[in-house]
C-alpha cells in the first residue's frame, strides 16, 4: 500500500517537473501585429534606398523608418522570451545606420548596381525577421 502510494507520488512529481520544464521554455508567441510591422517596412525601405542612387537622400523616408524601428523595439522588448526579435531589430537598425553613413559620407549617388546589392541585403534581413516571427508557436 505504502509502495503504491510512493509511486503515485513519483508520477505526480514527474508531471510537476514537466510542467516546470514547459514554463522554462517560455517563448513569445506568434504576433500578427509584429509580422505586419516588418512586412509593411519593406516599401519605405525600397523608397529610401532608391533615393541613395539619386542626388538627394530622402530624409522623410529615413526619419519614418528609424522612428518605426524605435517603436517596434519598444513594443517587442516588453514581450517575455522575445530577446531574439529585439536583438534582430537592433542589428537591422545598425545595418541601416551604416548604409546611411556610407551614402552620406560618400556625398555622391550610389551606382544602380551598388544600390541594388545593398537593397537586396536589407530586404533579406527583413525576410529573416519575418521568418523568425512565423517560426514562433501560435
Amino acid at each position: 500500500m505504502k509502495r503504491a502510494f510512493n509511486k503515485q507520488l513519483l508520477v505526480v512529481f514527474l508531471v510537476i517537473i514537466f510542467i516546470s520544464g514547459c514554463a522554462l521554455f517560455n517563448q513569445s508567441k506568434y504576433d500578427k501585429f509584429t509580422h505586419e510591422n516588418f512586412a509593411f517596412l519593406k516599401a519605405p525601405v525600397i523608397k529610401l534606398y532608391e533615393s541613395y542612387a539619386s542626388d538627394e537622400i530622402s530624409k522623410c523616408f529615413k526619419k519614418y523608418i528609424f522612428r518605426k524601428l524605435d517603436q517596434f523595439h519598444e513594443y517587442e522588448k516588453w514581450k517575455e522570451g522575445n530577446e531574439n526579435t529585439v536583438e534582430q531589430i537592433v542589428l537591422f537598425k545598425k545595418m541601416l545606420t551604416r548604409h546611411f553613413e556610407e551614402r552620406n559620407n560618400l556625398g555622391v549617388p550610389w551606382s544602380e548596381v551598388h544600390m541594388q546589392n545593398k537593397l537586396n541585403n536589407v530586404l533579406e534581413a527583413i525576410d529573416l525577421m519575418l521568418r523568425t516571427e512565423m517560426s514562433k508557436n501560435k
Partner: protein
Amino acid sequence: MDLWEKLIELNTDIFSEKEIQALLLEMSKSDDEFVKMQAVKIRVYLNQVAKEEITQKEFNSYITDIRDLADINSKKVDTENAALLQRVMIIAGKLLLKNAFTLAKMF
C-alpha cells in the same frame, strides 16, 4: 583580367585564390540554405568586381552586410529551435498528464 586574379589583387594579404575557391565550394555544398545563398551572392559580387561594376570598398561593405545577416539568421535559428523544443515539451506534458493516473495504477 580573370576573376580570381582580380580578387587576389584586391585581397592578397587576406586570402589566396585556393582559399576563396575552397571556401565558396564548401559554402555551396552546405545543407543550410542561408549559407548557400551567401555563396551565390559572393560569386555575383566577385563577378561585379571583375567587371568593375563595383569597387573593392563596396565589395568589403557587402561582406560586413553578410556578417550582420549571419547574426540576424542565428537569432532566427535560435527562435526556431526554442519553438520546436517548446512544442515537444507541451506535447510530452499533455501526454503525461493524460496518462498520469493510468501510469500510477500500472505501478
